[in-house]
């Protein structure tokens, strides 16, 4: 299991590959599910130029670890990877990566979804968008279901 808050840009797909290369799971996993959230250039009807992401150091990591551990236990996962950006995020950069590994697809799919939804609803991160009409805090996330 790896949970990291990153201040610098990352490529989610390269991160999955690099993480897999360091795992000793060959032959054990039959399913990899991943979700990647990236930076758009719009929100509702506004043009967004960049975003600043803030978190609560300590609590954010602790909260994500709890979510991941619960998922590992519930779905008997082989591994979980969660990366999340903070600081200034530019258009098209990756913001979040959740990847899960299991023997079969059901567990990988369901756990990846659950981790992502719990991250959205509970992990202490806040987005401030820079738009064509000034900066504004994002007040709520869009529903995932």
């Amino acid at each position: 299991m790896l949970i990291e808050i990153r201040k610098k840009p990352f490529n989610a797909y390269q991160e999955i590959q690099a993480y897999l290369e360091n795992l000793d799971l060959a032959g054990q996993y039959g399913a990899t599910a991943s979700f990647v959230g990236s930076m758009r250039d719009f929100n509702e009807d506004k043009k967004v130029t960049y975003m600043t992401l803030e978190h609560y150091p300590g609590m954010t990591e602790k909260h994500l670890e709890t979510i991941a551990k619960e998922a590992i236990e519930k779905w008997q996962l082989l591994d979980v990877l969660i990366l999340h950006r903070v600081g200034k995020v530019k258009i098209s950069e990756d913001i979040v990566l959740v990847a899960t590994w299991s023997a079969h697809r059901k567990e990988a799919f369901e756990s990846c979804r659950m981790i992502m939804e719990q991250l959205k609803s509970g992990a202490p991160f806040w987005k401030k968008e820079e738009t064509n009409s000034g900066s504004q805090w994002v007040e709520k996330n869009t529903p995932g279901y």
Partner: protein
Amino acid sequence: MQVSVKYFASLRELMGEASSVIEIEEGTPISQLWQLIIENKNIEFENVMMAVNMEYVKSEHQLKSGDEVAFFPPVTGG
């Protein structure tokens, strides 16, 4: 007793500070501390989320000496 209080995101901006140390009585519910803060600052803030020692708590949670209390708006990560 004293507790340290942290504020994040839009609430931090509204408060004009990221943290403060506040003197309250042992066992004070966190909701009472929140009322004290918004009354002292004369601010309005809806849908506040509350945490103690980096875990979410309910509004009736009673505070102890040295607790790290945090107030923040609904989270918007991911």
